[in-house]
């Protein structure tokens, strides 16, 4: 898996209750790209992410990661390649201490303890949370939890990072620190979010989902300039692109 690409071909997914969340969706994401998946609530963002590491399998169509189809047989390899950061860090941090949690993945990979130690230290250092190593997860703030959740994934050394609403419920400072951190990553990044200002900072490409299909796929800057398109998708321009409400009143 030298090329960390993602290919979805005509992917259709219907939940057991009959709701169709993805409708014949096709897309290609290349090596090292940073792509934002945006769209209103219920547009299928989380369902799409769940297909990228085999949490869900398509009802029809094919998901390819690095040239390998996502099937039960390739799952171990796929999950090693694709690191998934969940929306709620409490779901991701289940071990008694931060250290144990970050070590959980590398231990499952069957690494010797000395390598596990190295990886845990490196991952926690990257997210700036090394001093939290012995703390239990329930004693962390929202921003710290998010940082540690990312470290748990980084310790697996994935090539592709998939994140669901990484800036949700973060205070402005923690959000800014997270954005700065994500900017340093060279992984292929796929971020599902409502935080369009972050998208503007991090992702050169944006995909708008609407009712389980791709409404638009293109350069972030072009998409965010198209107010009509954003309206149609139930979104609005990032605040940094809107004219200042105070200045415009004065003018």
């Amino acid at each position: 898996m030298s090329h960390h690409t993602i290919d979805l071909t005509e992917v259709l997914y219907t939940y057991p209750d009959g709701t169709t969340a993805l409708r014949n969706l096709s897309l290609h994401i290349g090596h090292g790209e940073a792509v934002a998946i945006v769209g209103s609530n219920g547009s299928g963002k989380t369902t799409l992410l769940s297909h990228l590491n085999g949490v869900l399998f398509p009802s029809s169509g094919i998901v390819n990661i690095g040239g390998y189809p996502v099937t039960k047989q390739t799952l171990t390899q796929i999950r090693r390649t694709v690191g998934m950061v969940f929306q709620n860090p409490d779901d991701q941090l289940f071990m008694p201490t931060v250290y144990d949690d970050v070590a959980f993945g590398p231990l499952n990979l069957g690494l010797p303890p000395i390598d596990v130690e190295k990886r845990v230290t490196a991952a926690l250092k990257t997210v700036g949370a090394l001093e939290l190593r012995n703390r239990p997860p329930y004693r962390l703030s929202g921003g710290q939890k998010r940082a540690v959740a990312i470290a748990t994934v980084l310790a697996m050394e994935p090539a592709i990072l998939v994140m669901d609403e990484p800036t949700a419920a973060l205070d402005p400072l923690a959000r800014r620190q997270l954005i700065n951190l994500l900017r340093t990553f060279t992984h292929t990044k796929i971020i599902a979010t409502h935080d369009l200002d972050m998208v503007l900072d991090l992702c050169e490409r944006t995909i708008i989902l609407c009712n389980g299909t791709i409404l638009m796929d293109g350069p972030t800057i072009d998409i965010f300039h198209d107010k009509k398109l954003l309206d149609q998708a139930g979104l609005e321009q990032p605040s940094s692109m809107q004219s200042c409400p105070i200045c415009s009143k004065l003018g």
Partner: protein
Amino acid sequence: MIKLESNWLDLRRLDDLANQKTFIHCLDPCTKLFTTLAFVMIVTSFSKYEITSLIPLTFYPIALMALGNLPYNHLLKRLVVIAPFVVFVGLFNPIFDQSPVANLGPLVISGGWISFISITIKLILTVTSALILVATTGINSICAALFRIGIPKPIVIQILFMYRYLHVLLEEFLITSQAYSLRSFHSSGIHYKAWGSLLGQLLLRTMARAQRIYQAMLCRGFDGEIRLLAMGMRTKRDNIYFVFWLAFFLFCRFLNIPQVLGKLLLEGF
């Protein structure tokens, strides 16, 4: 609900206490676990009419609280929680067992009262020692010790997960019950008609969360086996600690120290 919230904060306080770095905290968790078990076994092995011989054993919790820098008030407050339990266990002893055993002037003391007091002392001693174990070791280290002494892994993991998500569940319950109380004006507490849907909601949300946690575990290569890193090492200090306390417990068990001291005092004069 404020009571529940304060209990929760209390739980977090125990964690804080366990994070200290005193001599007691730095001992191997296994040593502390075995010492506590030995203490509990010795205390419960006394006959049901024994009171005086139990008194010297209070030295153990008092010494540990002092060495472990534990606040007495905090632990004593927790003992109050078990008070009703003690009363119910010993409640019928004074009623059914009325055989006189001692006379204090005109006052006849029955065997029932003696055994009631004995049960109370035993419960206070055993519960305090368990609380001290948690407050000087922490749940995580205790679980690691349980695993090392051969308790099956699934049970240990269950305890760990339960403790981890107890906090999340409590938080969720607090928020839900707050939302309920903000929109119900008739009385304090939760109306019995609302309990069903409230707990049902909580159960459904817990199941959904369990599903998500399982997915998160799968994403990081979970294959049915949770690998715990080994913690703690038994050193010479641990052996000395254990042998010292065991000797003390046995000494208290087989020698009625208050009686011996009393005799010495009487013979001296």
